[in-house]
């Protein structure tokens, strides 16, 4: 095998893994707390992408892309908050129904974007310092991909800090461990749910900015990343950020390295087979805070 190709794909794998991670962190956090999956999470990516595009219309150039990150974060977090408080909260005891209802939201958001911005998609022009590439050991690495990895590491670091060192982090960990007991000690679990949901949606919005750097933002841009992100949640293990990160890294690398040998569509099928085989070995996920077996 060609060593350059291998290194290239290895690096690609890390940047794909970073996107999977940013897309799945919010899903995994909320799933750990509330046992629900928001099928409209992919549309938070889309929203982030469009917000980045609009920010760059107002503030063109290098400052724009930096400004786009908080804008996309806040915009997607607000949309997430709206979905959580109007819909998901009502369905909290019915995880499968939540899947269906939020899928409805996803359809509406996609069609809304199609009507507002057109089906073709909009192009975000990356600033010069992001559109170049760096040659390293014979491998050409696009700067945008390095930027994405850096952002993912930064987000993960901040999230870890928040969860381990702040008061809200303490509350989140408490609810994650035992919801009933946490509520009994006087923690407002609904507020913890809401905060974490907004945070997760915001991170997805931020991921949307990264997607906008890689290609055009279309109404269904979120769909191509969200299904791998769901697989990350399946593989990661309940309520563990470390597990989610490991799963994102494994699946990102797997799909990039598989593409050395087979085309994208076969790689996708192999990814699914890999996840199904993985749960034969570790049905509880990469890292399990709690077991799934008695989780009814």
């Amino acid at each position: 095998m060609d060593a350059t190709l291998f290194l290239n794909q290895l690096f690609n794998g890390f940047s794909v893994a970073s996107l999977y991670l940013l897309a799945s962190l919010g899903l995994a956090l909320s799933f750990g707390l509330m046992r629900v999956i928001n099928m409209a999470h992919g549309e938070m990516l889309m929203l982030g992408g469009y917000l980045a595009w609009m920010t760059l219309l107002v503030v063109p150039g290098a400052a724009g892309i930096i400004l786009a990150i908080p804008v996309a974060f806040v915009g997607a977090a607000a949309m997430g908050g709206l979905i959580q408080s109007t819909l998901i909260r009502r369905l909290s005891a019915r995880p499968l129904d939540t899947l269906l209802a939020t899928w409805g939201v996803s359809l509406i958001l996609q069609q809304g974007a199609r009507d507002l911005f057109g089906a073709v998609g909009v192009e975000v022009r990356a600033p010069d310092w992001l559109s170049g590439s760096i040659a390293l050991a014979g491998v050409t690495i696009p700067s945008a991909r390095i930027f994405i990895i850096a952002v993912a590491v930064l987000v993960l670091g901040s999230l870890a800090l928040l969860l381990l060192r702040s008061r809200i982090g303490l509350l989140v960990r408490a609810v994650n461990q035992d919801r009933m007991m946490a509520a009994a000690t006087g923690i407002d679990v609904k507020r913890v749910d809401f905060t974490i949901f907004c945070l997760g949606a915001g991170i997805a919005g931020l991921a949307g900015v990264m997607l906008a750097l890689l290609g055009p933002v279309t109404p269904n841009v979120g769909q191509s990343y969200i299904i791998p992100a769901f697989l990350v949640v399946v593989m990661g293990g309940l309520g563990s950020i470390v597990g989610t990160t490991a799963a994102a890294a494994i699946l990102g690398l797997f799909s990039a390295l598989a593409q050395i040998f087979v085309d994208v569509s076969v790689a996708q099928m192999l990814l699914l087979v890999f996840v199904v085989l993985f749960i034969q070995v570790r049905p509880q996920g990469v890292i399990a805070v709690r077991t799934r077996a008695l989780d009814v």
Partner: protein
Amino acid sequence: MSDPTLLQRVSKALPWLLLVLAIVAPFALSAYDLNLLARFMAMAILALGIVLIWGHGGILSLGQGVFFGIGGYAIAMHMKMADLPEGELPDFMLWSGQESLPFWWAPFASPTFAIAAILFVPVLVGSLFAWAVFHRRVGGTYFALITQALALAFATLIISRQDVTGGFNGLTDFYGIFGVGLSSPGVPAALYWLTLALLVASYCGVRLLLASRFGMLLRAARDGENRIRFLGYNPTPFKVVAFAIAAMLAGIAGALFTLHAGVVSPALIGVVPSIEMVVWVAIGGRYSLAGAIVGALLVNIARDAVSSAFPELWLYLMGLLFILVVTLLPNGLAGLVASKRA
């Protein structure tokens, strides 16, 4: 209600009346409408399977399109092969420069093989897949997400292998089935009756199954999987068998649909169509077989009416339907009828 006995009599007679109407429909409807009705009835067969696994088994599958597709492609491949003179290739293979027939196409020339494939490939794929997930006690939301990934992978695979699958356009331009032209006089009506007969047979079959001990254990596994483990049952085989039966019904539905529609393509079986199949049942009532049939027919009739006039509107409507039915009417139309009757 002043006269409950009259209401009871009407609600008892209604299904039989509808059945009689359905039997005589070919004499009353135009060819176009009959074709639509036949397609929707084929989809109703799939909906019965969703009642079995989702309503009574608590297994939400967002990948029923895969099994629908297997059935559809199996019959389409047979019709493509049956039209061909010896040693020639289907038209789309010639266009994409394919030089020889792939080995897995050849057996589909035999009608027996094609029918066996329609019935048993979905069962095989479905039971292997369900067993792999359920025997490790992974279920619920995880299973739904994995089935969605399956639907995506299946549709993408078909699209990318244009030279041997027909790609995005799917398979179409069929002449006939078992030596009879699809549009020769009498054939559409005969196919319609075949669909109706299979729908009625599937309804009776699933109904018997749900009333049996199997159905009871399936519901018990849905409501308290660990409890029935403690009682000494292993719930996995029940769930796997239910999923395999639903897969078989989906395969039959796909084959019938392809006969009526004259086309099978990835656009009919991917992620979005797969999840729409669940909404038919959600609207009709997830616990009710009759509800599922009504739901499948109603949603598809509405879709046909709305999307031909306002294609954009349909997606908004679909989205709203998902949200409203699940939040306000979790038992669907069947639940509404039952509460009126009570």
